Each structure stands twice: as C-alpha cells, then as structure tokens.
C-alpha cells in the first residue's frame, strides 16, 4: 500500500460551508468562550480547562460522562495561520488517541468554506486493527457495534 492511500484511509474529512464571514467563523472556532458553546454533544457540558491558542500551546477540554468519569480531549497546536488554518494534535481519551486535526478556513465572499480533517493515529496505534483490515480503528468497531445494537432493538 502506498503512503497516500494509507493517509487517506486514516483521514476523516468533513466539509461545510457556513453562511458567515471567515472572521466570525474563525472567532467561533478559536475563542474558548465560544468553544464551550458548541463542543459538547447536545445535553452535555464541556469545561475548557486550558486554552493556550498559539503554536506549541496546549488546549484541554473536559466533559463529565454519565458514569462519573471525565472525558478528556486535549492537544497541542502545531500550525496557526490567522483566518486560514489550524493544525493541532489531539487525544480523546478513552476513544481515540494520537490524531491530528486540521481545520482550513476559506473566505468566499460573505461565506466561509470550512474543511476539517482528522488524521488517525500513527501506524503503531493502528497495528492491531490493520492486521485485520481495520484502518480507522475504532470507527469500524463502532459500526459493527451499531449494527448489532440496531438488530437488538428490533
């Protein structure tokens, strides 16, 4: 398998166009008081523990889970280009560790094209999954779980 294919199979990409100027989209994505408003799934709360928005700076968000533990998301910014792009490492414990998140902002008049990549983990992390043909690690496991759960609900 060549490197590009491998990278693609490890990358989740989501594209959106927001009906708002890039300055507002950038602000909503990068300011902690805004992040706290949209990061958590509906019905859950997120606490911005740390938010050091500069290259080499750390961010850490904490979400209380139903079982009393905290679901921690954290990472370190590696690239920040104002109004254009942000790269950061990210660990989502316990689900997905060692991913890179890339966010691209593109001004289109009064709208903003937004591209979001999550590049999954290192080869090391994927090794057990790769052996069985799973490239997204958790993703395929969860698809199977979901299929099973749906069949249980019938």
């Amino acid at each position, binding site marked *: 398998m060549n490197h590009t294919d491998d990278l693609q199979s490890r990358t989740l990409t989501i594209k959106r166009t927001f009906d708002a100027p890039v300055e507002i989209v950038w602000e909503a994505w990068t300011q902690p008081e805004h992040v706290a408003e949209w990061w958590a799934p509906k019905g859950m709360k997120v606490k911005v523990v740390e938010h050091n928005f500069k290259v080499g700076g750390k961010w850490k968000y904490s979400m209380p889970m139903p*079982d009393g533990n905290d679901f921690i998301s954290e990472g370190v910014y590696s690239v920040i280009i104002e109004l254009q792009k942000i790269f950061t490492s990210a660990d989502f414990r316990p689900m997905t560790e060692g991913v890179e998140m890339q966010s691209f902002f593109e001004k289109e008049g009064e709208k903003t094209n937004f591209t979001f990549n999550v590049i999954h983990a290192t080869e090391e992390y994927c090794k057990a999954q790769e052996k069985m043909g799973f490239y997204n690690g958790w993703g395929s496991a969860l698809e199977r779980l979901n299929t099973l759960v749906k069949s249980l609900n019938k």
Partner: protein
Amino acid sequence: METRRDIFQAIADPTRRAIISLIVLQAMTPNAIAEQFDSTRQTVSNHIKVLQECGLVTSKQKGREIYYQIHPKKLKALADWLEPFQKMWEERLDNFGDYVIKLKNKKQNK
C-alpha cells in the same frame, strides 16, 4: 476488594477493542481469537479477562470448547454512549454551524 472494572478503561486499549470487534459478529474460542494477534496467547487471554471483568464479554461452554461472546446489554449501554467517530464530528460541526449563525446575528444586532 474492587473487582468491578471500569468499562471505559477496558476499551481504552487497542487490542481489547480489536477483540471486541472480532467477537461482536460471532462467539469465538480463545485459540481462534489469539490467532488474530501477534501477542502471546497469555497476553490475549489477559485482555479477555479484563473484558470479562467489566461485563462486556461472557463465556459459554460448548462441548469441550469455551466460546467468548459479547454481552449485548452491556454493549448497548456502551454503544449508546459511544457514537461513531464520524457521526460525533458531524454533530459537532452541526452545533458549530448553528453557533456561527447565532454569533453572526448577535454581532449584526449590536
């Protein structure tokens, strides 16, 4: 003595997640599971033990063989909480999109 294992701790390990992925489709013998991994049988067996301790995996005897299988109720509890990664991000970006529009409107009304 604390015997009950935390389910999230149990699935934090990639090998254990791989084991779940395997036996979610069909019950398997310890040998069949171990064959799928590079690690020793003992290591795989320890992972299965952790999964059993948190209730995610149960065993049943069939003839002379032991089969490991997923415990559906426990799995459902887990799956209810753990949404697929992509879906999680789709929803998060939906949230974000709604919020961006709210923020835009707020700024325009100032």
